[in-house]
């Protein structure tokens, strides 16, 4: 497979996954804001922190200040995270990135998968999408999510299960690891440092954790595993270690390792990709070993930081070894 094509496949997967994650996060936050009984900035600011565009928002939107009302203005935050062309992780930028990469490898994707990406791109950036956004916000996010899920489903059900799909999926999984890790990190920090409230504090905390789980499409899965008990420790453990949950860190890292093993079999030492493979194997083993350790307080932050840093490192090595960077 051509390295440049592999690169487009990888980034196509990342952008599709990122589009979906953005839509899911914004929908969950918008819903949460309705009955949060929290200062609005505490609902919306984490969205910006997770996106990594907090500084960009402060400079361009919030007049350089941390007390600016924009931080708590859901409309402003959503506009920034959906439509802002200068925000590198806005929904339109991710969607554009997915579509551009797909267009560069149209002959590699199945026709159905390409059409799904092209249609959602045309829809979201055209009149129908803007109207839907203005009139039925939640339906807009739902439509975007469904279209990206349709795309990922079509890829698996209509493409050859060989190298190009492996690269797409590797991109999806590594993007998903980062998304889950950053979401959990930001929210874990915010929720466990809430000021003590004489009444209803626990209710709010439960609602916060459920919002996080919903943003990761994991509330049902979690409640099944936890028998309906919601706790910070339980949620963190679930999102880090639950081997059967397709958005947990353990699942994504392990699946990414499996995809890379298919791309570059461990025994074929003459092929490029050996360093990436080893890095991913080590991370997989490291995450699995964390299952044996308590997970609370600062340990959560350290663990998640390590995961995010390692994934970043692995993506760099992959680029050099296999993607022609």
């Amino acid at each position, binding site marked *: 497979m*051509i390295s*440049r*094509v592999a690169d487009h496949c990888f980034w196509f997967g990342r952008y599709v996954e990122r589009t979906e994650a953005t839509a899911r996060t914004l929908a969950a936050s918008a819903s949460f804001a309705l009955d949060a009984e929290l200062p609005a900035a505490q609902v919306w600011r984490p969205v910006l922190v997770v996106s990594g565009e907090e500084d960009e928002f402060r400079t361009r939107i919030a007049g350089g200040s941390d007390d600016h009302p924009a931080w708590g203005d859901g409309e402003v935050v959503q506009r920034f995270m959906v439509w802002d062309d200068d925000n590198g992780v806005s929904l339109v930028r991710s969607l554009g990135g997915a579509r551009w990469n797909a267009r560069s490898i149209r002959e*590699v994707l199945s026709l159905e998968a*390409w059409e799904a990406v092209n249609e959602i791109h045309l829809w979201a950036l055209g009149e129908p999408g803007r109207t839907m956004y203005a009139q039925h916000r939640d339906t807009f996010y739902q439509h975007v999510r469904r279209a990206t899920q349709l795309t990922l489903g079509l890829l698996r059900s209509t493409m050859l299960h060989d190298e190009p799909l492996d690269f797409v999926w590797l991109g999806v999984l590594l993007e998903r690891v980062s998304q889950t890790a950053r979401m959990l990190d930001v929210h874990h920090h915010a929720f466990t440092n809430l000021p003590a409230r004489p009444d209803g504090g626990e209710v709010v905390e439960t609602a916060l954790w459920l919002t996080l789980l919903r943003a990761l499409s994991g509330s049902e899965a979690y409640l099944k595993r936890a028998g309906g008990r919601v706790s910070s420790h339980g949620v963190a453990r679930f999102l880090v270690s639950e081997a059967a949950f397709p958005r947990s860190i353990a699942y994504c890292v392990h699946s990414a390792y499996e995809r890379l093993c298919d791309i570059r079999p461990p025994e074929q030492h003459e092929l490029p990709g050996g360093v990436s493979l080893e890095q991913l194997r080590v991370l997989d083993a490291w995450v699995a070993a964390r299952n044996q350790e308590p997970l609370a307080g600062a340990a959560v932050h350290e663990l998640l930081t390590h995961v995010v840093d390692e994934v970043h490192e692995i993506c760099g090595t992959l680029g050099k070894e296999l993607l022609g960077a």
Partner: protein
Amino acid sequence: MGQSQSQSQSQGLVGLFDGYAPLPGTFDEMFDASGAPRPAFARAAQLLAKMTPEDFARAQQLAETALLQQGVTFSVYGDARGTEKIFPFCLFPRLIAADDFRRIERGLQQRLRALGMFLDDIYGDQRILAEGIIPPEMLFGAAGYRPMLNGIKPPGGVRIHIAGIDLIRDPEGTWRVLEDNLRTPSGVSYVVENRVISKRMFPRVFDAARVHRVDHYPTRLAETLRSVSPIAGDDACAVVLTPGPYNSAYFEHSFLARTMGLELVQAPDLYVDGDKVYCRTTRGPKRVDVIYRRTDEAFLDPEVFNKDSVLGVAGLMRAYAAGNVALANAPGNGVADDKALYPFVPDMIEFYLAEQPILEQVRTYVCLFDDDRQYVLEHLPEMVVKAVDEAGGYGMLMGPQASADERDEFRRRIEAEPRRYIAQPRVELSSCPTWCAGHVEPRRVDLRPYVLTSREGPWVLPGGLTRVALVRGSYVVNSSQGGGSKDTWVLKETA
């Protein structure tokens, strides 16, 4: 039965074709001068006429949406945001009768054989110059002539693997070759995609009309490419080389790669080592045997052509000259589709094949010849004058529309440099019923059939790209100037 059929026919024609009037002095593809449908198309015309304008408008709208959603688009140059547009499409099909196309097919095969032999000769012994058939100054002035390719024999012996020949039809209905495209002709993806749409929109009419299929073109193209591989058969690695997603024809490049199951590569994916071409893959280098290149030859290899090209593959021409890679189309073909050589194609056919040309072309005056020049200068108001070394409508005089000053200017230019100019009478292009905002009107069309030449010889796709001048009164079918396309239905022989 006969009675009721002819009755429903005349009633039906009132429907969608209500008020349709063929242009005076123009051959209409669908209707004869009396307004009756041409016999071969009677059945299809009858069924089409039964649609209401509302039905048709809805189908046209659906067709455009489908093309946009499938991304059947071309990129608009000079637009930083990478804007893409659909090639304007008229759902009303253009029909070609079986016996008409049989003649076109034979004529194109003959023409392609002669043009191929001409290229072999020009890059070989140049017999056609030695025997005085073509004046040497016409050749040596042709921009597409590449003397550095002299003596190089292409792998498989084929040079014009893919040709798109532009045909027009004069007021008598005679098919004439207007132009040969022997370098990187485009448009065939629209032929295949337009067909998908019209089958979906008109299943009944299409079925009744008995139309030749076109969707096997990519398979035939892949066979053609494999047939010229320097290494045998199934192990040959063929790729499609594109300048990239910003190229206006990128959709077509990716379409062809996808439908042939070949890799679509860009120049940086390839490199040359030891006069062999390799592709950079995730599993290391992979040898490439055949390249269907959609990059202009000026940008193919910075060692030989344009030194500043970043689109090129350094050393590609060395690998080609060593016989290690086949290039489709071969570099150097531009000399055979040069305006300066076009007037001599009938002579080539007689010279190389000892046959009479089957297809007519447009009468062309070569200003280098005294008699021709004199005729042109005396008839400038009727002539289209073209500079042989310019393209895209530049360096042209449209005699009938030009001012007296413009004509005088061209008179001076022709007298100063007669070799640079050829002239043709303007031909009234044929017209075809075309959907124009709510009803059907005649609009002028041309036809680009596609010819694939493998080791076994030329094959003509029974179809082609019909381009239509959508603007009323226009003769320009080019998409950048208000042109669009139609599905072309080549009808099967009646059983």
